[in-house]
C-alpha cells in the first residue's frame, strides 16, 4: 500500500538528514505504529506519505515514495487526498469550517463528490464516530476527544484507503484517548483502512499495533518489524515492556493483559517487600478554601478546598475541562475567585506583582514557548535574571544543570520540546518560587526526557519546593506524585496518597500497578524503577 524506496529526506540548511534511508513496505489493512525519540523524524516520515514533505515544507527527498501506485513526486498532497487522510498533531489547527457537519463534508466538497453521496457519508460517519449529538455544534465548543474524532471523521468521509495520524492521543485524558483508539481499531477491522500512527504514549497504543516502525534516530535507517522483537531493543518503550525486560519474560509482554498472565512469580517475590513510605512534608504553603470560579454562566470550580505543603508533589488529574487549568490560573492570581480564599504562604496571589509574585509561585504553562519571547536562549536567561533581581548568569547556571547540552546562542524555537521545557523551568525556578505549578508538562516528551523531568521534580521537592502538576499522564503521576487530587466538574472527587488513589482505578492506574495489583487498595510498586528497587536489582 505504502512503499518507501530508499528515502532520505534533508531539509534546507539542515546539517544532517531528517530521515535516513527509509526502505519499507506497509501492507494494506495494517495498523503501523511509528516509534522513536523526539526529533528522530517521525513527523517527517508521516508527512512524506502524503507528499507534504517535500511539496509543502521544502527540502530534498531522495528515493521514491509511492502510495497505492501513485508517486508523491508527481502528485501533490491535494491529488492524494482521495486515498490518504492526514490527521495532524493539533486537530484544532486543521479545521477549515466552523461546525461539525460542515467540517465532515469539507474534504468531499474539495474532491467533487456528488451531493447525495456526501449526505449519506456524513450521516454514516456521524454514527461511526459517535458524533451525531454534536453535529451542529461549533467546532470551538467541542472537548478534546470530540475534536480529535471530528478531525478523524473529516478525513474519513473521503473514504481514504490510508489514514495517517500524528500523536492522536497525546492531548487527551485517558478516557478520551481510549475512545479515539477504539474508533481507530474499528476502522482497521471493519473497513480495512491502513493506519499509520505516531505516538509518544506507547502505553496507550502499543497493544493495537500490527507492526512497529522504529526510527532509531542515531543515523541507522528505520526498521519495520513485529511488535515483540522490535520492543526488545527499542530505545523508547512503555513501562510494561520495561517490566517484561526486567523480569526476563518471554515472549515480551506488550499489553497489561499479556503481562498479568506471566506476573504470578513476580507478585509472590514482591509480596513481602515493604514498598513505600509516607514522604516527609514541611510547612503548608498553599491553602485554598471553598474556592469558586466561573466563566459567565458556566461554573468552572465549585467550592474547592486544597492544602499543599512543602516537599509535596501533587498531581491534578481529571478529564479535559474538569477545572485543572482554571485552578492553576487561580493559584497564580491570573483569575480572582468568585468566592472563597486562595493563599500562597499566607498572601492572596492576586494582589502580588513582579518579583514578589514569582518568588512565591511559578507556573510553566502548557505551551512552554508562551513564556519565551527573545531570539536566543542567552537573552531569555538574562531577561529572567533581571525579572527576578538575581545575579547575572543565575538562570544560565540553572539551565546548565537541567539541560547542559543547550547552546545559549540557539533560538528557543529550534529547541526540542524537552529542551524548551527545561528552559521554561529554569526561567521560573531562578526566582526560587516556594510553589511550582506545571500544566501538562509531558505533552510531546519521549520516555527518556520524561524520566529526566521526573528526576528534576523529585529533586525540587526534596529541596522543599511544593510542586503541583496538572496532567493526563498516569505514568508520570506514578513516577513523581506523592499525592493525587482528582477533579471532576469543578469539584474534588478524590484526594489522597498516590498509591491509594491510582491502584484499582481503571483509568488512572499506571501499567505496572495494573499488572501487579490483584485487589484494590493493595500496596504494590507503581513504576519499573520501584519494582527494581524492591527486588534489589538495577532497573
Amino acid at each position, binding site marked *: 500500500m505504502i512503499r518507501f524506496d530508499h528515502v532520505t529526506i534533508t531539509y534546507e540548511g539542515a546539517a544532517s538528514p531528517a530521515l535516513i534511508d527509509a526502505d519499507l513496505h506497509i501492507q494494506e489493512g495494517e495498523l503501523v505504529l511509528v516509534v522513536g525519540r523526539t526529533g528522530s523524524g517521525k513527523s517527517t516520515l508521516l508527512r512524506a506519505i502524503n507528499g*507534504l514533505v517535500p*511539496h*509543502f515544507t521544502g527540502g530534498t527527498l531522495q528515493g521514491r515514495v509511492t502510495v497505492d501506485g501513485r508517486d508523491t513526486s508527481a502528485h*501533490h*498532497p*491535494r*491529488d492524494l*487526498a*482521495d486515498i*490518504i487522510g*492526514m490527521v*495532524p498533531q493539533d486537530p484544532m*489547527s*486543521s*479545521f*477549515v*469550517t*466552523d461546525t461539525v457537519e460542515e467540517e465532515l463534508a469539507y*474534504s468531499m466538497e*474539495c*474532491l*467533487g*463528490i*456528488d*451531493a447525495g453521496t*456526501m*449526505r449519506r457519508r*456524513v450521516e454514516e460517519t456521524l454514527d461511526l464516530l459517535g458524533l451525531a*449529538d454534536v*453535529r*451542529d*455544534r*461549533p467546532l*470551538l*465548543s467541542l*472537548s*478534546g476527544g470530540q475534536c480529535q474524532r471530528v478531525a478523524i471523521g*473529516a*478525513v474519513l468521509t*473521503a473514504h481514504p484507503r490510508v489514514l495517517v495520524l500524528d500523536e492522536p492521543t497525546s492531548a487527551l485524558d485517558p478516557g478520551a484517548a481510549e475512545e479515539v483508539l477504539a474508533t481507530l481499531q474499528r476502522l482497521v477491522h471493519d473497513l480495512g483502512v491502513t493506519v499509520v500512527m505516531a505516538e509518544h504514549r506507547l502505553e496507550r497504543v502499543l497493544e493495537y499495533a500490527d507492526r512497529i516502525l522504529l526510527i532509531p534516530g542515531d543515523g541507522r535507517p528505520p526498521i519495520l518489524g513485529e511488535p515483540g522483537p522490535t520492543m526488545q531493543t527499542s530505545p523508547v518503550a512503555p513501562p510494561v515492556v520495561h517490566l517484561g525486560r526486567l523480569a526476563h519474560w518471554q515472549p515480551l509482554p506488550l499489553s497489561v493483559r499479556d503481562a498479568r498472565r506471566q506476573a504470578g512469580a513476580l507478585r509472590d517475590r514482591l509480596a513481602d517487600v515493604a514498598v513505600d513510605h509516607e514522604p516527609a512534608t514541611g510547612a503548608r504553603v498553599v491553602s485554598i478554601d471553598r474556592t469558586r470560579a466561573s*466563566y459567565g454562566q*458556566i461554573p468552572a470550580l465549585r467550592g474547592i478546598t486544597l492544602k499543599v505543603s512543602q516537599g509535596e508533589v501533587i498531581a491534578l488529574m481529571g478529564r*479535559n*475541562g474538569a477545572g485543572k*487549568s*482554571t485552578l492553576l*490560573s487561580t493559584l497564580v492570581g*491570573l483569575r480572582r475567585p468568585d468566592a472563597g480564599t486562595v493563599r500562597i504562604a499566607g498572601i492572596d496571589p492576586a494582589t502580588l*506583582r*513582579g*518579583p514578589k509574585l*514569582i518568588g512565591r509561585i*511559578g*507556573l510553566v*504553562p502548557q505551551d512552554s514557548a*508562551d*513564556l519565551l*519571547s527573545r531570539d536566543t536562549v542567552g537573552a531569555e536567561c538574562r531577561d*529572567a535574571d533581571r525579572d527576578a533581581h538575581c545575579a547575572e548568569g543565575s538562570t544560565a547556571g540553572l539551565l546548565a544543570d537541567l539541560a547542559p547540552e543547550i547552546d545559549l546562542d540557539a533560538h528557543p*524555537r529550534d529547541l526540542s520540546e524537552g529542551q524548551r521545557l527545561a528552559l521554561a523551568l529554569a526561567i521560573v525556578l531562578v526566582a526560587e518560587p516556594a510553589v511550582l505549578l506545571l500544566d501538562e508538562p509531558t505533552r510531546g516528551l519521549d520516555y527518556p526526557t520524561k524520566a529526566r523531568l521526573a528526576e528534576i521534580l523529585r529533586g525540587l521537592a526534596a529541596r522543599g519546593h511544593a510542586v503541583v502538576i496538572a496532567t493526563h499522564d498516569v505514568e508520570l503521576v506514578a513516577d513523581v506524585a506523592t499525592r493525587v487530587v482528582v477533579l471532576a466538574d469543578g469539584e474534588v472527587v478524590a484526594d489522597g496518597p498516590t498509591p491509594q488513589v491510582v491502584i484499582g482505578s481503571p483509568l488512572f492506574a499506571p501499567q505496572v500497578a495494573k499488572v501487579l495489583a490483584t485487589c484494590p487498595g493493595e500496596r504494590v510498586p507503581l513504576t519499573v524503577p520501584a519494582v527494581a528497587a524492591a527486588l534489589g536489582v538495577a532497573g
Partner: protein
Amino acid sequence: MPRMLHPGAWWLWATGLAIAASRINNPLLLLLIIAVAGLVVAARRPRAPWSRSFGVFLRIGLIVIAIRVVFQVIVAAPIGVTVLFTLPSVTLPDVLAGVRLGGPVTAESILAAIYDGLRLATILACVGAANSLASPARLLKAIPAALYEFGVSVVVAVTFAPQLVADLDRVRATRRLRGRPEGGVRGAARAAVPVLEGALERSVALAAAMDSRGYGRQAERSPGVRRATTAALLIGLVALIIGVYALLDASAPAYLGLPMLAVGLACGLVGFALAGRRSTRTRYRPDPWAWPEWGVAACALVTASTFLAASAMGMTGLVAPVDPPAWPAVPPLAVIGILVSVLPAVITPPLPRPRIPVGLTREAVGA
C-alpha cells in the same frame, strides 16, 4: 419549517437599507434604519460567535461619528453663524491655501458633521447586521466557483481574528508569570512577537491541512479554454472601466457609456463561467433559495428603490436642514419605505434550535 435563511438574502436586505441610508442625512430616518436593522437582528440572529458583530459595528459607528466631528472642528470650513468657540488658527503656506486649521467652530457645522457621521454609522450598522445574520462560511458556499479561492482567504482571515485576541490574552498572562508589568506600550510591543509568530504558525498548519484535504484540486482544461477564459475576463474588465468612465464623464460620447458597460458585464460573466468550470468542487447541503428569500429580496428592492426614486425626484425631508438648524421633517413615504424592511423579522422561517445548548468555547472554560 425552521431553517437558516440563504446568506445572500440577508446581504441583499442589508444592501437595500444601506442604499436608503446613503441617500439621506435626516437623523430621524437614519435612526429608524438602525432600529429596523436591530429589530431584525434581534429576531433572527443565530447563536454563533459571528452573530455578535452588530454591536461591534454600532460601536465602530460611534467612533466614526466622533472622528467626523473632530475633523470638522479642526480642518473643515465652518458653515452658519452660531459660533460656539474659536480655536487658535494656524496660517498655512500659500501652497495649502485651500486648507484651514483651527478658527471659529459653529454649531451648524458640528450638527452637519454629526448628521454626516450618522449616515456612515448607519451604513456600517447595515453591514454589521448582515454579518450577524449570515454566517461568513455559509456565504462562502454561495459565491461563484471562480471566486472560491479568494473567498477562502477572506473567511480564514475572519476566523483568525478571535484566535489572535485569545493569543494576546495568553501572552499577557505569561508576562505576569515572568513577573513583568502587564500593561504598557513596551509590554504590548514585546507581546506582539509571540502572538504574530503563533498566528503565522497556525496559518501554515492550516494551509498544510487544507492541501492534504484536497483544497485546490483542478479539472484538466485544454489550452484553448484557458486562453478563452483569460481573454474574456480581460476584455470584460477593460470594457467595464471604459463604460464606467464614459458614464461619469458627461463629455464622453454616448456610445461609450451603457453599451460598453453591457459588453464588459457580458464578457465578465462568460469569463466567470469558464473559470468556474475549472473547479471540481461540489457543495454539501447548499442553502435553498425559496419564497422567504424572494420575500426578503423584494423588501430590499422596495426600500432601495423608494429612496433612489425619492432622491432623484428631490423629495423634501430626506436632508435635514442644518443652516439654520431646524427639527427635521419626517416624510411618511420614506418611513414606509424603511418599515418595509422590518418584514423579514416575521416572514423568514424561525431559526432551527440547536440540539444541545451551545456552551462556551473551549478556551473560555479553560480546557
